[in-house]
């Protein structure tokens, strides 16, 4: 009946016959989403999950009894031979889990932020470079149809020399004092607006423009949280002279869902984009665009994914990971090395703001 053969949560043979065994560490909101997406890939079977929540383990025992459950990820890595490990736990736990997964010689997908320091990110990246897996961090904006288009246009030099920019992100994650309880409300566990939202805005900047030379005037301002900031503001300078700002606020109720907004001005025009729409103002016709304003909507540039759960980018990043794990010779769009640069910029912001990690 279907023109595609579906692998709805049951094992099947992949096209080239190789079936990757996956384990998930952390079955919270993102872990569950990744589980649903990974399970739909024809070459992947989720065989094990490590999570210490009693509810999740009972749910999984009941509904997916064939998946092996562990309360301890080290035990999972020791007892189950895995090709892939997907880590979606609070960020302060990532380092040890990545180390253990590297020891087990699995490919690794770890949620953002990669770690809590550039130093640890560099160490893990260096370790991974002597191994043969694929190593990816969950910077999902790199897989968004509109931002991918922006990347393609910038790489083609659509704006010429870049002068200035803004990378902003807004959302309503923390709008009361009580919303900041748990790991998300504490910088020590990888929470706070800088690690949670700011990492996305910074990574998008690094993805599109590369690593900046300098960060100045950083303010980390709490509104509701007591152990972390809710607003991040900073200024950035590149060695080519381009300057810009980053504003990130996860306590803005006027946003229905987390939204990244970017604006980049260059000698030939300006590019503005969010997850759904890209606007381009050009001082002269360039590529296929006219002089003046051009609009590119997501409906113009999207490519469909095999299975949609939360947006094309969420599926695309997980399939990208699975496909690189099948063939690690292909480059990864959101590698440990990329995420290390982002982590170093986060470090620069923390140091500039005089904040403790």
């Amino acid at each position, binding site marked *: 009946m279907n023109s595609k053969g579906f692998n709805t949560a049951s094992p099947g043979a992949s096209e080239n016959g190789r079936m990757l065994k996956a384990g998930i560490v952390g079955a919270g909101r993102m872990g569950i989403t990744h589980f*649903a997406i990974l399970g739909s890939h024809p070459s992947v079977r989720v065989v094990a999950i490590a999570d210490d929540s009693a509810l999740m383990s*009972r749910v999984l025992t009941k509904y997916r009894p064939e998946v092996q459950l562990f309360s301890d990820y080290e035990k999972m890595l020791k007892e189950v031979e895995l090709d892939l490990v997907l880590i979606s736990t609070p960020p302060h736990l990532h380092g040890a889990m990545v180390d253990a997964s590297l020891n087990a010689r699995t490919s690794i997908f770890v949620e953002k932020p990669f770690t809590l320091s550039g130093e640890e990110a560099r160490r893990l990246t260096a370790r991974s470079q002597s191994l043969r897996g694929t190593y990816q961090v969950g910077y999902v904006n790199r897989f968004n149809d509109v931002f991918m288009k922006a990347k393609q246009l910038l790489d083609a030099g659509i704006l010429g020399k870049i002068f200035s920019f803004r990378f902003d992100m807004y959302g309503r994650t923390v709008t009361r004092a009580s919303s900041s309880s748990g790991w*998300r409300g504490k910088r020590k566990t990888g929470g706070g607006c800088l690690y949670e939202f700011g990492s996305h805005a910074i990574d998008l900047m690094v993805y599109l423009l590369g690593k900046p030379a300098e960060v100045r005037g950083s303010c980390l301002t709490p509104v509701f949280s007591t152990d972390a900031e809710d607003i991040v503001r900073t200024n950035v300078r590149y060695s080519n002279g381009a300057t810009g700002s980053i504003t990130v606020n996860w306590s803005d109720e006027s946003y229905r869902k987390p939204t990244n907004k970017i604006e980049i001005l260059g000698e030939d025009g300006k590019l503005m984009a969010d997850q759904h729409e890209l606007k381009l103002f050009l001082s002269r016709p360039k590529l296929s665009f006219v002089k003046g304003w051009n609009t590119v*909507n997501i409906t113009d540039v999207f490519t469909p994914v095999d299975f949609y759960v939360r947006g094309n980018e969420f599926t695309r990043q997980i399939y990208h990971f699975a496909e690189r794990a099948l063939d690690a010779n292909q480059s990864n769009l959101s590698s440990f090395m990329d995420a290390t640069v982002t982590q170093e910029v986060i470090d620069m912001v923390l140091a500039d703001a005089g904040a403790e990690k």
Partner: protein
Amino acid sequence: MIELDPIILGDNQFFGINHMSQVKAQQLAERFNDMRSIYDAYRTAYDLGIRAFMLNSNDKAGEICDYFRAHRSEFPELMLYPSIPYPHKYANLVAEQGIVGAIQAVLSGHSATDLLGFAGKGLSLLTGDVARIMTMLIDVELKIYRKLDFKVVYLQNIVTDLLLGLGFKDVFVEYCAHLEKKYHAVPGFLTMNVPRLAAYLESCGIQNAVLCGSVNKRGYLMSPDVASYEAYFRGMQRYPMTAMSIFASGAIPASEAVDYIVKQGIKSIVFGASSRQHMQATLELVKGHA
């Protein structure tokens, strides 16, 4: 087999949701900030002959249902198509309190009677009976629609598609059974994966269900691709279907969009419109193709 209304007015436009442009979404959120402008739009739609409204159980839906109950004489033939839950409410709660905390907050955040009932039912959380938790959540979500007519209840695509990916078969079965038994309603599923979901529901032995998914020739929000949808529509369609996103959030000219739907043999659409002019134009187009 259930007769779906051929034309259903959706609600995204009232709540600042637009899948193509956040600028448009913002404009709509401002325009419909005042509840009266939403009621005006519903009255206009009803005047024009639209009898069916899809209404998501979001923050404002309770007030809208109060309005329909209070003005029953103005909407005598009203048929609602509830869609549950409001995903962002849960997403935010889960971000704040974790999955267990979010479920507890929703189930306990209602009346005192609910709270008493919940104390007895709290066991479901500990036994990990997702199906039971889900039926309790359905009851909580459907309370706002009490004493209003509905024959289908849709599960939001984020939940449908997550459960589909997770392969929680029994949850699908239990959801359907609960709606049929307690509400005499046909279980509906919003989904971005129509062919995959249809195949899965069949494998679950679920025969009585309706689907609502995007159908447009651009393939926007249609996974895995247009060809698979067209193959599904050409095949033995088991589940009645309402098409959404037929204009791909404005990317496809209206006439072409309706043409495409008719060619796929689809007899029911849900569309968003905020002005009399747009509603009327869409109605005339659909009637012209009928």
